[in-house]
């Protein structure tokens, strides 16, 4: 299982998801209507490193972080 964490204003607790790639994870997360507005605007990290390839493989114990639009300063 993959642990998915939602940061900042998304306001959703962590979930455990079964997925072998980020593409599969995308399909799982899109089933959640509450995330429909967030996913197009969110960046993604795998074990605290930013990722940009949907074919990235996932393994049990991985942690995926969903990062909504930012505004520091």
């Amino acid at each position, binding site marked *: 299982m993959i642990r998915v964490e939602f*940061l*900042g*204003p998304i306001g959703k607790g962590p979930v455990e998801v079964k997925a072998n790639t*980020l593409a599969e*994870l*995308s399909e799982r*997360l*899109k089933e959640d209507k509450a995330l429909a507005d967030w*996913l*197009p*605007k*969110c*960046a*993604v*990290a795998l074990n*605290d*490193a*930013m*990722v*940009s390839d*949907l074919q990235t493989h996932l393994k049990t114990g991985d942690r995926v*972080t*969903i*990062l*909504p*639009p*930012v*505004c*520091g*300063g």
Partner: protein
Amino acid sequence: MELYQGPLDAKEIFGRWLDEQSGSNYGAYIPFIGIIREEGSIEALSFDIYEPILQSWFDAWQERAAREGAIVKMAHAMGDVPIHTSSYVSAVFSPRRRVALELIDAFVEDFKANAPIWKYDVINGERIYAADRSTPMDGAGLLA
């Protein structure tokens, strides 16, 4: 990189950074200070920070600065920061001013775009996400 709960003591931070580098032979020290402006009916801004990715983002900037013989510094507030106080300070030290001026510009702009920090208006004690002022990070939309 320094993180604080509540507003920053900018004078202390800038003074300490200056003292720390007093023997380093840098020719330029360019500080930047971000202050919460009074706007609308906000009483404060409030910040969430995801420290692991902020740290790696900052480390990458340290490496970029080092290639030019410079260093970058930053401090940011977490939680509520009242109007007219400081939430963010950063600085560049470098041997020459031109490098420092260009680095502080690029550093602060990339900070606004890619540092994992979320801003909220505080109005009547309630935190409201500043969605209209926020920017999707590089690579956003991957899972959409």
